């Protein structure tokens, strides 16, 4: 019988740091890793010598080894599982499991990248599996894979471009209060649907930003958490799931969140109604819509109605989301949005979000990510976090 980390005493997020830069022209990726590691450890009140487990994805070098040496860590547990933007939520799950198993007590998770400074787009061949040989002549791109999911959702459920636009509108309402956000202007539904079409039915303003920087988290054992001055944010539930089209049978209107969310909620012993704030990886507006449905915040097919009622806007709706402005407006370091979702959830649970977007009595929050290609193959990861 599987024993969850929560049942074994749990693990706590005690350090969270988002790099303030959005354009790192003069800093290397390795340097950014060091800066976010320092930021998260200082936030926790710990030093690099306390770290005995290290998690990262897509770092320079062979797996985690080069950055482990670069930072001078002596980890007993490492994990460089790379499932795209959701990797860092999955790392929190794995860190909690390793802590519960007694394998380590202070886990450091880092993300850093500079796609904006380097002018790089994601190179599909870097991630080439056996499927790519059957697909490369068709010039698939990341945005196209999310656009096809949106088109299918519109076909099956009558979802509209205007409804999707509400997700960007909500993010922009929050981003105006974030001094570090890349885009701080509040936009309207009309501005979203009148922005240039990128891949039908997704417009430019349905797409997240490209930024440099990164972030880091520190996850520790209950004993370490008790010794620190910071508010304790417990990893109450976690789930992950790889969804794919297995032999060519796609179901583009749902994601791995159906499984990862159910597992996280079951482990936490809570339901979607208990969530005060949701931080959901918003690579594109459609990523959020599908996640909201799959996680159970609304019925399948009713996501458009849910978001167009303003439910995602803090102070107005019943599920404030991405109160930092999310990837759509604030930050999307290294083309990977999972890290910043956990960081903003931790801010909310500590009561350290911007006062204009802080959710009152925020005791339970959710962080969720979709890494990879939603229309075909991706990894969903969900965390339920609780303030103690």
């Amino acid at each position, binding site marked *: 019988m599987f024993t969850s980390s929560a049942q074994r005493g749990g693990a706590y997020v005690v350090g969270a740091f988002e790099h303030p830069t959005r354009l790192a022209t003069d800093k290397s990726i390795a340097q950014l890793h060091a800066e976010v590691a320092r930021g998260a450890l200082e936030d926790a009140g710990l030093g690099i010598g306390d770290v005995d487990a290290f998690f990262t994805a897509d770092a320079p070098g062979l797996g985690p080894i080069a950055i482990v040496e670069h930072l001078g860590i002596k980890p007993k547990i490492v994990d460089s599982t790379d499932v795209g933007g959701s990797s860092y939520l999955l790392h929190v799950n794995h860190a909690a499991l390793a802590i519960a198993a007694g394998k380590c007590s202070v886990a450091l998770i880092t993300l850093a990248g500079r796609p904006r400074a380097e002018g790089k787009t994601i190179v599909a061949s870097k991630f*080439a599996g*056996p*499927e*790519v*040989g*059957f*697909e*490369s*002549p*068709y*010039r*698939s*791109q990341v*945005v*196209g894979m999310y*656009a*096809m*999911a949106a*088109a*299918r959702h519109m*076909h099956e459920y009558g979802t509209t471009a205007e409804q999707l636009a509400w997700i960007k509108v909500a993010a922009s309402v929050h981003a105006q209060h974030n001094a570090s956000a890349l885009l701080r202007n509040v936009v309207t539904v009309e501005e979203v649907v009148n922005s*240039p*079409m*990128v*891949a*039908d*039915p*997704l417009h430019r303003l349905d797409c997240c930003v490209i930024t440099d920087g990164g972030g880091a988290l520190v996850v520790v054992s209950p004993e370490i958490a008790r010794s620190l001055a910071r508010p304790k944010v417990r990893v109450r539930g976690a789930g992950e799931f790889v969804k794919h*089209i*297995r*032999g*060519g*049978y*796609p179901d*583009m209107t749902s994601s791995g969140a159906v499984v990862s969310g159910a597992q996280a909620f079951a482990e936490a012993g809570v339901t979607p109604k208990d969530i005060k704030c949701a931080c959901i990886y918003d690579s594109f507006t459609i990523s959020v819509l599908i996640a909201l449905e799959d996680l159970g915040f609304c019925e399948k097919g009713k996501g458009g109605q849910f978001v167009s009622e303003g439910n995602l806007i803090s102070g107005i709706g019943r599920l404030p989301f991405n109160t930092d402005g999310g990837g759509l407006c604030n930050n999307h370091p290294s083309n990977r949005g999972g890290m910043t979702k956990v960081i903003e959830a931790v801010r909310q649970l500590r009561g350290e979000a911007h006062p204009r977007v802080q959710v009152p009595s925020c005791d339970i929050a959710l962080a969720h990510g979709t890494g990879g290609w939603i*229309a*075909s193959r991706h990894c969903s990861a969900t965390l339920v976090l609780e303030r103690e």
Partner: protein
Amino acid sequence: MAETIQTDVPPPDVDLDNEQFWAAANRRQLRIGQCTKCQKAFFYPRHFCPFCLSADVDWALASGKAQIYSYTVMRRVDKPYVLAYVQLDEGPAMMTNIVECDFESLRVGQIVEAVYVTSKNGSLVPMFRPIDGHA
């Protein structure tokens, strides 16, 4: 089936996992996986069945008839093109491009047929076009 010259199509990356598929495409054949043990059809074809892991599989000839499962027009390029998944009459769906079409008239569920498009190195790539009356 007609041949279309569309020279901006990247050539396939032929390797041990897909050489039979691309050799067949050059003969204007669309090959899919067919398990002789559990009877399921699958795409992409491979040397085993992704449903039961049996090695007893055929690279079966598909009819080339399909319908659009979903599609998008990739606009931010010099020459926009249609990326799609089409569901083959045999069951499985495949990624492809829809060609010889009016972008604005495309619909999910539209009936399409295979057409073989010449890629940059001259090898043929199966794509799909609307059947007359739907274009």
